[in-house]
């Protein structure tokens, strides 16, 4: 793979974006958004993660295989979380057999 050498400017802009998002997430936490607080916080965290991964970790210049591996890792985490939560969120739904 040819070396894509990003400019200092690119990295600096990404850093500024990351710092700005940190400030936003901190300040937004003090605003009452009810259920959405968590959603917003996680959304911002995901954005920061994407910035770090794509730019600092050079995923946007990586091979397709690397990108697939990264995606796979996130997918597997999602499987763990989703299916485990399936248990905990449905505890009361259907009764226990025999009762």
């Amino acid at each position, binding site marked *: *793979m040819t070396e894509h050498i990003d400019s200092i400017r690119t*990295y600096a802009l990404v*850093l500024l974006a990351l710092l700005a998002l940190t400030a936003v997430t901190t300040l937004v936490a*003090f605003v*009452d958004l009810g259920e959405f607080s968590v959603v917003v916080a996680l959304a911002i*965290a995901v954005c920061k993660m994407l910035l*770090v991964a794509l730019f600092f970790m050079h995923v946007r210049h990586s091979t397709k295989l690397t990108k697939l591996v990264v995606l796979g*890792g*996130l997918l597997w985490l999602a499987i*763990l979380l989703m299916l485990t939560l399936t248990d905990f969120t449905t505890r009361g739904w259907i009764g226990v057999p025999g009762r």
Partner: protein
Amino acid sequence: MASALQEQFDTEAQQKDASTLGMWIFLITEVMFFGGMFTAYTVYRRAYSDAFAVASSSLNVTIGAINTAVLLVSSFTMVMAVRAAQLGQRRTLVLFLVLTLILGGVFLGVKAYEWNEKFEQHHVPGPSFHLDGVPQQGHAQLFFSLYFAMTGLHALHMVVGVGILSWLIWMAYKGRFTAEYNTPVDIAGLYWHFVDIIWIFLFPLLYLIDRHLPK
């Protein structure tokens, strides 16, 4: 000076791709490693959201935010180091690696201070645990168990990262990395950024739960 093209590879580029892929495979195992704790966190936060909110508010947001910024800047200095290596700029490389190391050290120092505060406030799970404002002490203890487990594991990874950086600084100083061969810097960078990403999630999940509620 390592020419470093191993026998089984055709080109340096292919070898570098293989090393990068290898590091990413390791990183996704790390994702699952931390993922187990994030799952535990998710389950318990859903179940005990009130206790978690009170417990979270006992953490110092300002310090947490500053530490987050410290790590983000250290990721910046790390990628600048990688860039310097790609351009064959030895002195710049060493400089940025040293900066990254220092910032990592700052983060760990601040963490140590925070933990010490927790010890003094009796927020460490165990027989002497007590948190005001929570009817169910057990639930709050769960928050802090996860707090210490997750930040502890993260800090352990930082310490390993600091060790790796020290080694890199030494090698870079001796001129072992060139524009043709800088793979160790590159993949150490991947590791460092990963540890940063973990903190990116830890910060809001631990420090920012329901902060809008009156204390």
